[in-house]
């Protein structure tokens, strides 16, 4: 008892009570909500705004993803927005004055069948045309980059090659959220935690306020950034979204010495693996098939993913699962996000990022802030409008996004 505890370090953001009114309210204090608030304040001078979070800051999917960042998507629209995100990732540590350990260690997407090989080579070609760094690796080159990978023919789905994006990588997700939150707070944004939205106030078809468990807040504009709960909020506001919420699970092993130098993903055998800075092996799989809001999934999905991981990385047979968890991902039928206006006036939605929202965080924030501030979409999110499900201009990214994140 002799030594007193050290002083608590300075808090990165305040915990204000909600004001009676704001120029804009962002619902959801995860990565996308915080990034949106940051770009609203920085690019559009809107500082009288609030981010409402029903739990604690960045405790949803922002805390549950596998932190992979890449931009090697097939279609022009996706490549544009994800590549813009990647370029922002490259400058954000300096801009936010926070080193969130963005590590451009490269991402490999393995091919295990002739179909995979053809699709992968096509994607490499499309990426190059869109200015995204991409190359095709044969199995020997795969082995050189990631020596612990098994490229022999003794497994059910041997590695037949891989696409490789050298500028891709991982970042510390929590720190990304904290970096945005600190800057938002400095710029005057109110970050209000434990504030759950229970309804909306509307004047005709125009939203004028947000009802919460901490009172009604008047606002001129509302931006929804609630991922898996987007449908629930949309229903409160009186419109529908083409979203299905599914559990998506991930897990970590205990800490190991550095053995895995890059990020390896495999759509075909449903696993993706990287090694966190601390040393855990971080692995994810595909979504559970059923709709779910429970932040947990079924164990057989993890079992399947472990089987694939051990075949690809035989040395992982000695590792242990330390912790598993689930997030609720908001999937669309074309595996592309929805960022834009809604049928309700002055209400905007950013959702449908499904299994790959983390990598898109900066671009989601930038384009959604532009959409909220100006009332019209940014050039990058124009194709990702809700209307595409009526016009038929879908952006089918199942090849690049469905399992791999």
């Amino acid at each position, binding site marked *: 008892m002799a030594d007193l505890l050290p002083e608590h370090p300075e808090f990165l953001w305040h915990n204000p009570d909600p004001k009676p009114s704001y120029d804009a309210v962002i619902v959801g204090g995860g990565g996308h909500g915080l990034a949106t608030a940051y770009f609203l304040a920085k690019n559009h001078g809107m500082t009288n705004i609030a981010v409402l979070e029903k739990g604690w800051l960045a405790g949803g999917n922002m805390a549950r993803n596998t932190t992979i960042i890449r931009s090697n998507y097939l279609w022009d629209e996706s490549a544009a927005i994800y590549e813009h995100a990647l370029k922002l990732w490259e400058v954000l540590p300096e801009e936010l004055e926070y080193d969130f350990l963005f590590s451009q260690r490269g991402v490999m997407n393995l091919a295990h069948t002739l179909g995979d090989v053809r699709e992968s080579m096509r994607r490499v070609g499309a990426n190059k045309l869109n200015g995204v760094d991409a190359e095709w690796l044969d199995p020997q080159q795969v082995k050189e980059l990631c020596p612990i990978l098994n490229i022999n023919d003794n497994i059910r789905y041997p590695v037949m090659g891989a696409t490789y994006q050298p500028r891709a990588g991982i970042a510390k997700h929590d720190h990304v959220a904290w970096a945005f939150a600190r800057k938002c707070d400095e710029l005057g944004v109110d970050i209000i935690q434990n504030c759950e939205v229970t309804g909306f106030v509307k004047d005709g078809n125009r939203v004028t306020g947000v009802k919460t468990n901490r009172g009604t807040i008047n606002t001129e504009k509302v931006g929804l950034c609630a991922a898996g709960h987007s449908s629930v909020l949309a229903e409160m506001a009186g419109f*529908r979204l*083409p979203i*299905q919420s599914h559990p998506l699970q991930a897990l970590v092993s205990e800490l190991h010495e550095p053995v895995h130098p890059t990020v390896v993903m495999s759509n075909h055998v449903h696993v993706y693996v990287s090694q966190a800075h601390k040393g855990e092996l971080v692995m994810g799989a595909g979504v559970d098939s*059923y709709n779910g809001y*429970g932040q947990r999934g*079924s164990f057989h999905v993890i079992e399947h993913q472990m089987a694939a991981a051990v075949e690809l990385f035989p040395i992982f047979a000695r590792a242990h699962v330390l912790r598993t968890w689930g997030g609720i991902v908001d999937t669309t039928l074309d595996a592309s996000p929805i960022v834009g206006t809604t049928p309700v006036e002055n209400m905007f939605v950013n959702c449908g990022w499904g299994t790959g929202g983390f990598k898109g965080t900066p671009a989601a924030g930038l384009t959604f802030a532009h959409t909220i501030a100006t009332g019209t979409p940014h050039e990058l999110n124009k194709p990702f409008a809700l209307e595409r*499900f009526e*016009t038929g201009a879908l952006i089918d990214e199942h090849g690049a996004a469905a399992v791999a994140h």
Partner: protein
Amino acid sequence: MLLISCPNCGSRDETEFHYGGQAHVAYPENPNELNDREWAEFLFYRDNTKGAFAERWLHSTGCRQWFNMLRDTVTYEIQAVYPMGAPRPDKAAAAPAPESTTAPEGATK
């Protein structure tokens, strides 16, 4: 892992089943009269209920029959299993189902 009571085979592991999404979505009666918005609703919009949700399942490695299930999407508790074409049990108890003028969904004989 869900333990699902197939109406024909009894309790089996979830891995024997395939998920079929929201139940009670009927094919449009007059497809030619649908506008783009209505087609979008039929093709892409499904309920995404938080709570009791009526959904279809297929016992793909068992009897290979479709059936409906009422399941809580938060607790994942299975509340009822009922045949294709039957009304949703919790709603049916509250109010008698209106007489349908069309063949029940899934009732291809």
